[in-house]
């Protein structure tokens, strides 16, 4: 199974090289970094490390960056794509677990930090409330039991790459993408993973933004339920 690792990155010059080194240690060579309009040396350091870099001319947001990576994977004919974040939170040791889900016929495999018995990852109290709320919302509306709906540690099979390269939510995309996948008839599953704290830097989702995120994503999911399934945008 030809697999591409996509890494959306925004101002992660302090983390990107270590993330790439870790991936190579685990045997992954097909890597592309999508630089989402960084103002630091993220793209330069990634290119220096010898990986392909797609430089977006300005910041488009995580959704557009991931979609760019998926479009690239589709163009190059990859069988599977794994998204991993550039801040070191996602442990590459679990990539093969994600890919085994694709190998079993699932189209979208989500790495859940809440399923792993040894996971010591703790996010903020407000974020945990948001995660549980979305878990309930997605289960109720889309019939998908997802314990970690905001996890960006995901593997995409061919059908998911085909769908999401055409239509992918913009900001805070993960919960909405899960609902879109289920409504398009894709098979979604979760595997346990361990997540770590950021190596350095600050998360783009801070406290006050968490509330906006919850309102926005809830409304987006509810409105998505009213749209025809799998319809490309534009």
């Amino acid at each position, binding site marked *: 199974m030809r697999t591409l690792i996509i890494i959306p990155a925004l101002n992660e010059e302090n983390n990107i090289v270590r993330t790439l080194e870790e991936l190579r240690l685990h045997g992954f060579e097909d890597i592309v970094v999508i630089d989402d309009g960084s103002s630091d040396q993220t793209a330069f350091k990634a290119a220096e490390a010898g990986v392909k870099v797609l430089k977006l*001319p*300005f910041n488009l947001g995580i959704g557009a960056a991931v979609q760019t990576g998926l479009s690239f994977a589709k163009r190059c004919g990859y069988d599977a794509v794994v998204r991993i974040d550039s801040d070191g939170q996602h442990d590459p040791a679990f990539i093969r677990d994600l890919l085994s889900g694709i190998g079993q016929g699932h189209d979208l495999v989500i790495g859940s930090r809440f399923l792993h018995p040894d996971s010591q990852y703790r996010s903020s109290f407000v974020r945990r409330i948001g995660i549980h709320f979305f878990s309930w919302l997605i289960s109720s509306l889309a019939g998908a039991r997802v314990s970690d709906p905001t996890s960006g540690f995901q593997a995409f099979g061919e059908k998911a790459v085909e769908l999401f390269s055409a239509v992918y939510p*913009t900001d805070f995309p993960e919960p909405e993408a899960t609902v879109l996948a289920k409504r398009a008839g894709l098979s979604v599953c979760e595997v346990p993973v361990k997540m770590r704290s950021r190596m350095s830097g600050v998360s783009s989702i801070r406290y006050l933004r968490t509330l*906006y995120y919850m309102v*926005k994503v809830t409304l987006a999911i509810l*409105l998505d339920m009213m*749209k025809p399934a799998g319809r490309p945008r534009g």
Partner: protein
Amino acid sequence: MQAGQITIVLFCVLIILILDLIRREKLSFKYAFGWFCGCFLGLALAVFQDVLRAFSRMLGFVLMSNFIFFVCVFAAIFLGLLLTVFMYQQQRRNDIMAQRIALLQEEIESLKSHNPK
């Protein structure tokens, strides 16, 4: 039907219209958020008119309608300013993309000339 009731109906229609624009992907939630806040605030003040009356008198407006007009004018000015800022940002992005296209075109032509096949 009284003015307050008409206002409530119009705000409800506006909220439904905005939701439908988002559903049809003509408008993103990010840009609709401000409109939602305005609509819900307007709806709340249309329901609790005494609050609006007391607030307008506190600010020195004799008639509540004068205060509403004043707020609407300044809201339109502020919205115009926001749109101007947004247009400028879009123009800058267009410029950057045009420059990148020109540079990419040159690179492609250069590669073609060095490798005709």
